[in-house]
């Protein structure tokens, strides 16, 4: 993005009153920075992260859901799988040490550091159509994560068949004893981070969630910072 755009994206005056933006930095020590980009509020993003390299995602404005899909960069038929990640780890929440697995059961990435209690992989993505169920048909004009995923996936020759259930960095979805679940107020904050190491060359798609009808973005979509650092040789 241009310097003017970046300045606008990082100007708290462009967000809800009282917004604090904290760009933080890589969550892992050392390592040459290979990529460092700011994703504007509501925008999609993608990059290939090579085997061994580490992606830090910074929740710049706090409680900003970063919807995320991972693909084997050499064969996108192999992609992130919510159920395989849950079944192999034995836990529905994603934390430090969680192996993010593919639909073939293989490790795509491992969470190596995490500054909030738990990350979500149950809540899926919002979308233009699903918003009509969740909030009413008056929301049908609103942009959603599914649209971000479709737009970004199209750059790699992928489409609706390739969009599956995803991760939601910095989103909070508790499951209660009777199975009741839902998106509630976040447990992140400005400058909080998560970092994961690629266990193969992975294509990472991110939707900086545009949702304005539930607390997944504090009703105030803000930027994300994406930093790729070189892994230990």
């Amino acid at each position, binding site marked *: 993005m241009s310097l003017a755009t970046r300045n606008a994206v990082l100007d708290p005056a462009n967000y809800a009153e009282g917004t604090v933006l904290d760009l933080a930095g890589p969550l892992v020590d050392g390592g040459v920075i290979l990529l460092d980009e700011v994703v504007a509020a509501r925008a999609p993003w993608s990059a290939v992260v090579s085997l061994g390299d580490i992606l830090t995602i910074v929740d710049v404005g706090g409680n900003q859901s970063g919807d995320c899909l991972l693909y084997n960069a050499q064969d*996108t*038929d192999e*992609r992130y*799988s*919510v*159920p*395989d990640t*849950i*079944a*192999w780890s*034995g*836990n*529905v*929440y994603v934390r430090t040490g969680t192996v993010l697995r593919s*639909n*073939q*059961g*293989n490790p795509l990435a491992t969470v190596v550091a995490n500054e909030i209690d*738990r990350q979500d992989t*149950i*809540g*899926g*993505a919002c*979308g*233009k*159509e*699903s*918003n*009509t*169920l*969740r909030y*009413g*048909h008056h929301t049908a004009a609103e942009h959603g994560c*599914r649209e971000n995923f479709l737009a970004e996936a199209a750059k790699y020759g992928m*489409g*609706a*068949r*390739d*969009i*599956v*259930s*995803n991760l939601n960095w910095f989103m909070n*979805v508790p*499951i209660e*004893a*009777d*199975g*009741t*679940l*839902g*998106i509630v107020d976040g447990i992140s904050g400005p400058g909080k981070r998560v970092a994961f190491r690629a266990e193969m060359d992975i294509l990472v798609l991110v939707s900086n969630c545009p949702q304005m009808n539930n607390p997944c973005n504090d009703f105030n979509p803000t930027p994300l910072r994406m930093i790729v650092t070189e892994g230990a040789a």
Partner: protein
Amino acid sequence: MAKVASEHETETVALARADARAQGGRVADAMPYLPASSTPYPPPGVEPGALTWAETVAGGNYTHKVVARGTRIRLEDVTGQACAHVLLYNALEPWERLNVADTVKIGWQAYLTTGHPLLSGDGRVLATIVDDDSGRHDALCGTSTAAANRAKYGDSAPQGPSPSGRELFILAAAKHGLAPRDLPPSVSFFKGVGVKPDGGLEFTGSAGPGKAVELVAELPLIVLIANVPHPVDPSPAYTCGPLRVHAWRSAPTTPADPGRDATPEAHRALLNTADYLAARGL
């Protein structure tokens, strides 16, 4: 029954043809029943002439069918050891398919039972769960993979002793022109999984033999079913019992149906489904 070469006379085409034809009409423990009305196990209260699908699926095997909107599908766990992994697609536009995340999130409920709509990612209902006396189902753990079954049982191949659900789904999907990329996370019936306060999984297993769950197709559907052990079943043995599948002509849910339209989310999903069908002239 044992099948060995000494039981067959097949030296000539005529003998081989007679030998092949002599095999017709035999009965196996797991098989489809055609016509469906000939099933030895008609569901209670269902007129056999209304049946459109009748089959027993062995543990470690799979089945698939395209069904009309309004079809009622009954899955029965005969021995208490089946686990029916299910994927659903809009048969008219199969890139519209089951979305488990939307199904649990929009339903505000992780544990599936009667009344829960099974949603696509396109804001519509593919099917509604309309009856359930098991209550032990799972929308979190998906099905098994080659990697998991090799690690757990030593083999995962469809032709081997412990097929994985994903490999069976790949075959079922291929028979409808669908590829491995078309396999999203699936749901499973008859083996329960609970979530503990720390997020840990608790396998609650089967509710016992003879339990059944029934779905109504709200759109024309491609239905894929793999009957394999649940991926977090702690048993080291590959144990999976027969699954009985019956389907018959019934009625789809209409908006304002009191039993299946209990929430505003289900109501709008049914409205979206009706809107889609009306525009297509269906």
